């Protein structure tokens, strides 16, 4: 649960980074980059097995997007698909036996058990949907007209800009963190057999949380760029 804090000084200010999160994050990113590189090296009309696998992931995301967002949604695929793949890889990394590699403090677990990581992703989503909404609707993004209902809705939207990233960040963080606490409690109770079903459940949770983050991102972008409010 403890993180490996590293403090450095830059321009008379001290910054602290969580080194274990950084290491596992780059490991997850390397996994994704390597996977995508190998999968897209030789693209053919008659696809290989790996290409079929990637195409089905993309088809899954396209199907979800078509059901949740208005038309002209293909330009949002890069953000949504990379968020989904990264969160999935990062969550599943918590079940790898990386803890046997000893570092100075803390342990190598999934990077999403650090709230800084999930908060950064939530802020990216916030900025993305606000900018997408402004590009799509220009000055009518927040305030459609000057009626009473529109002004009330503007304040609700402004409030949602705070609560949406907060809930996105804490939901993902708390799920992964609670899973790790649960596994460690089960490990303390009986060492060999009780943690296994809990870890299987954590694999399910990893998929569900990645899907939930992706679907909520889609819903936010769809709500910001759609015609109706």
């Amino acid at each position, binding site marked *: 649960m403890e993180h490996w804090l590293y403090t450095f000084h830059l321009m008379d200010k001290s910054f602290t980074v969580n080194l274990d999160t950084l290491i596992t994050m780059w490991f997850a990113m390397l996994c994704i980059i390597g996977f995508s590189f190998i999968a897209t090296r030789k693209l053919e009309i008659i696809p290989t097995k790996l290409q079929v696998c990637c195409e089905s992931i993309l088809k899954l995301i396209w199907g979800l997007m078509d059901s949740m967002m208005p038309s002209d949604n293909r330009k949002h695929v890069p953000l949504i698909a990379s968020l989904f793949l990264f969160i999935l890889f990062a969550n599943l990394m918590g079940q790898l036996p990386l803890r046997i590699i000893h570092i100075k403090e803390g342990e190598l677990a999934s990077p999403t058990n650090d709230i800084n990581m999930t908060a950064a992703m939530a802020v990216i989503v916030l900025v993305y949907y606000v900018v997408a909404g402004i590009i799509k609707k220009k000055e009518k993004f927040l305030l459609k007209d000057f009626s009473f209902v529109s002004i009330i809705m503007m304040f609700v939207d402004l409030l949602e800009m705070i609560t949406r990233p907060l809930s996105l960040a804490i*939901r993902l963080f708390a799920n992964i963190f609670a899973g790790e606490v649960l596994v460690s409690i089960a490990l303390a109770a009986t060492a060999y057999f009780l943690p296994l079903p809990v870890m299987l459940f954590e694999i399910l949770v990893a998929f569900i949380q990645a899907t939930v983050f992706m*679907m909520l991102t889609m819903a936010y972008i769809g709500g910001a760029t759609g015609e109706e409010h």
Partner: protein
Amino acid sequence: MENLAHLGAGLAIGFGATGAGLGIGIATKGLMDAISRQPEVAGKAVGFFLVGAALAEACALYAFVIAFQLLAK
């Protein structure tokens, strides 16, 4: 003061888990209703159920984070 923090942690996770349990129970009831009425939508309904259950469960996990912060003091 520390004892009160422990009490608060227990109360927080207890009430949070109550709400999340109620929510997931209602969601499961809805899933059962839907499947028994229309068995052919089972695959699609389970997907939506899992997402909804994850959203309901998140409320218990907010309480868990609060409880953990109280215990870590």
